[in-house]
């Protein structure tokens, strides 16, 4: 059963002549337990889709169904116990004046959950941070540690779906590997569903089962990971992304004027 179903989703910013169509009639479905990737370059609309899915953007048109229920523009509180998001920039997604403990306590207080200290300890353990980190401020943490705190914060409400918005783009390669492994572990042990958004085809190919390639607000094609690596014919843009992710090739660096 598809846990997320999106049909003809469109998002427009601004109105009149200056209106920009960020997402243009996008449709896709994500099965429960799947890791689904959205790949594209900046401005293609992939992050906008995530924001529409989790309710941060309220002016969208089309149909969004999550866990069988049709979504309205505003979400009720219980929705947030089902779907959570991890943001891109670990330096920007933690409140600079709150300690780790305060940040993790917030969702607990908002939803009046019991056993706060237990929950916090457990979630810190799940993401590989010890109790030493509870009273640190974000500026005392490294990029990887901040991202782990962000993941812990997303997990504390025990969601079923995690929306990952370029979660490793701001991290070093070695730290990225650790966080990707963490995502894999959490996925397997907690039975989560992921939608992973990234511009990095390598990261998407590593974690995802299926992916959609986006450009200028539209989905150009959807494929399984095997299709990427095997020689199945792909959309020209997908091929371009694929080649570019292999590194610089002077023969392919088309000297196109801009």
């Amino acid at each position: 059963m598809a846990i997320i179903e999106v049909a003809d989703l469109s998002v427009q910013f601004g109105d009149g002549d200056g209106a920009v169509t960020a997402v243009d009639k996008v449709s896709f479905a994500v099965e429960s337990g799947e890791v689904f990737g959205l790949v594209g370059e900046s401005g293609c609309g992939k992050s906008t889709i995530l924001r529409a899915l989790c309710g941060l953007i309220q002016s969208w048109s089309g149909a969004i169904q999550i866990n069988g229920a049709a979504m309205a523009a505003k979400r009720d509180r219980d929705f947030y116990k089902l779907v959570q998001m991890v943001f891109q920039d670990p330096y920007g997604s933690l409140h600079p004046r709150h300690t780790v403990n305060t940040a993790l306590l917030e969702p607990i207080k908002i939803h009046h959950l019991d056993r706060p200290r237990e929950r916090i300890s457990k979630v810190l353990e799940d993401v590989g941070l010890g109790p030493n980190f509870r009273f640190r401020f974000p500026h005392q943490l490294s990029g990887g540690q901040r991202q782990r705190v962000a993941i812990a914060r997303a997990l504390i409400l025990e969601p079923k779906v995690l929306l990952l918005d370029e979660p490793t783009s701001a991290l070093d390669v070695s730290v990225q590997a650790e966080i990707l492994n963490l995502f894999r572990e959490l996925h397997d042990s907690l039975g989560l569903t992921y939608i992973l958004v990234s511009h990095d085809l390598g990261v998407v190919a590593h974690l995802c089962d299926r992916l959609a390639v986006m450009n200028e607000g539209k989905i150009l094609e959807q494929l399984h990971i095997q299709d990427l690596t095997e020689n199945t014919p792909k959309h020209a843009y997908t091929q371009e992304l694929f080649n570019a992710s292999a590194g610089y090739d002077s023969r392919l660096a088309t000297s196109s004027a801009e």
Partner: protein
Amino acid sequence: MSDAKPDETLLDVEDLRVQFNTHHGVVEAVRGISFSVGKEKVGIVGESGSGKTVTGRSILRLTPKMASVTATRINFAGTDLLNATEQQMCQVRGKRISMIMQDPKYSLNPVRRVGHQIGEAFSVHRRVPRAEVKERTLEMLSAVRIRDPRRVYDLYPHEVSGGMGQRIMIAMMMIPDPDLIIADEPTSALDVTVRMRVLGILDDLVAERGLGLMFISHDLNLVATFCDRVLIMYAGRIVESCRASELRDAQHPYTRGLLDALPRINARRKMLPILARDPAWRDAGSTL
């Protein structure tokens, strides 16, 4: 990737050390590195905190006040950069060594037209009539493959895309005809397809003019495919140095660890090998 031999050494650095004096104590960003750059593309790769950016900036003495830069030698084609006066450094910056920075959003002056900024980079080093400055600017804009130089000349930085902004940055840095370019993460803020095009321009210009290029980046794969030689930095030291083509056979465990930690489309693994940092790496040899 050119096969040009670095026939003459442009930049020669020996035992460079940079430390920052902060409230929390002394932070040693660069701990004794030595390298040289000829008419070739040398990549300096490292993660955050490795000291690669500080290295680039300390050559041009663009480090903050609380940094202290010492070395046995920083020599650029006969000029001693270590002991040069500020006035002498001004003669070097832009004219002989240029620096391309990461994000044109932040490195271009937002309130001046793009054409004027490029022109200024030229006229600050040469006394030349204004008409000629404009002509040279338009020439340079075509050299970075901007289709309509006259139109772009009058644009403001916020009116151009990331890729075009970076081409403009390259134009600005190349117009005074330097001998060495230091590029600090020049394509990290760009989309992947745009990145390839901008690198193509940089590649051609560097080959055409016989320049040296110091390419600082965190992207090992990119540097390995773009540059001629690669230096890997860790904790302020150079732990590996080899030809780019030989990177796959790298010896140092840190390099191997970095290579293994990259997710590869063609060779999917369930878990990526974690880079286990050996404290002994901090004392790695630092000379070429």
